[in-house]
């Protein structure tokens, strides 16, 4: 049997291995990753209290309570229109830049509670969830967001059972309303209603036919 020279083979394999080794050395290590799994986050969400009431925030701001940092997630324009005194503006889009992460880390090291303020609670919850999953445990969401906080004086005067920031509270008894509306619409079934529904459908259908 003819012995083949293995020189070229060895050379090729060495190059391949070198490429891999270089790859591992220069691999852009993801500095940022999620520290907790989704299941852990859900477990936390179901139990723990991560919100802070706007009234409490107002009290803390007034009495200059130590150990609190206020981070405003709205864009600089909205921030300049009105903000909580002493709050830092970190627009949501820049939440994960190195500088801002350093800020959050510093706050964590000082064991300060960082209160996130967005336009409303829904827009604050997303960024908070991201930070929570990255591993920042000292963040709280201010309920109602700036929209509520700015009108606090007004809201306080309003004689309502549930405060406005309780957006997840059902505002109606849904089932009862549906029942009521059904009985109403049953009475007016023959009036104008079908006329409105039908043209709307026709319009849509024509558009579909044209498209395909």
């Amino acid at each position, binding site marked *: 049997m003819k*012995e083949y020279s*293995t020189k070229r*083979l*060895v050379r090729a*394999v060495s190059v391949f*291995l070198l490429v891999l080794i270089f790859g591992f050395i220069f691999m852009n290590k*993801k500095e*940022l*990753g*999620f520290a907790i799994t*989704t*299941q852990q*986050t*859900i477990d936390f*969400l*179901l139990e723990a209290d991560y919100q802070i009431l706007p009234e409490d925030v107002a009290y803390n701001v007034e009495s200059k309570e130590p150990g609190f940092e206020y981070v405003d997630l709205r864009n600089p324009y909205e921030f300049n229109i009105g903000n909580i005194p002493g709050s830092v503006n970190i627009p*949501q*889009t820049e*939440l*994960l830049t190195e500088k801002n992460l350093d800020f959050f880390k510093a706050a964590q090291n000082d064991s300060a509670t960082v209160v996130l303020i967005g336009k*409303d*609670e*829904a*827009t604050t*919850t*997303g*960024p908070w*969830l*991201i930070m929570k*999953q*990255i591993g920042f445990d000292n963040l709280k969401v201010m309920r109602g967001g700036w929209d509520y906080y700015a009108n606090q004086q007004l809201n306080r005067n309003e004689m309502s059972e549930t405060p406005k920031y309780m*957006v*997840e*509270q*059902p*505002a*109606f008894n*849904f*089932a009862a*309303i*549906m*029942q009521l*509306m*059904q009985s*109403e*619409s*049953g009475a007016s*079934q023959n009036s*104008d*209603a*079908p006329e*409105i*529904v039908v043209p*709307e*459908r026709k319009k*849509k259908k024509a558009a579909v036919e044209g498209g395909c």
Partner: protein
Amino acid sequence: MNKTYIILAMILIILGLGMFVLESKEQATGLSPEELLFDLNENTRYITADELASRIIDGDPSVQLIDVRDPLAFRNFSLPGAKNLPLANLCSEDVKTFFTIPGKDFILYSNGDVESNKAWVLSQRLGYKRLYILKGGLNHWIATIIKPIRPAETEPREVFDRYEFRLGASQYFTGGEIAPASNTPFETISIERKKKKSAVEGGC
């Protein structure tokens, strides 16, 4: 036997074993925090109540509503065709299969915006596609679609058009055309799963 061959074979086996290490390190599928934040910055995830109403009325088959409230609230009232998915069940295997049904827009809703946003962020992190949120939730849905408020006479024409549409939609959702929402059978996601499984066995 040439010695080089043995060494080369050893390299191959080592690289092959290295794959096990890589795989275990690569567990974290789904989005990175930056990607998630990027998606969050885009407000395209919201779908308005009017838009949703017109899609349901048109019989858009891609609409898949997902109710993230607790089962009790879901049984009390839910939107037509909605499936109940409380936050606690988000990680189960059934849900994973459910979210991969092709050609569906998964529209999450709760009473307001907050719970649905939570569910959206968590599911988006897991890498599910085509997730949306009903803007304003059920409270907004009832206030605009089911009980539309007559606009003031000074309002522009479009507002009145929208009001007319809402009146019609209100009839549609409360009238006799479909089974009343409160009477829809209680559907859980695990029912859906069987269908999906057989589809997988058959085709893809």
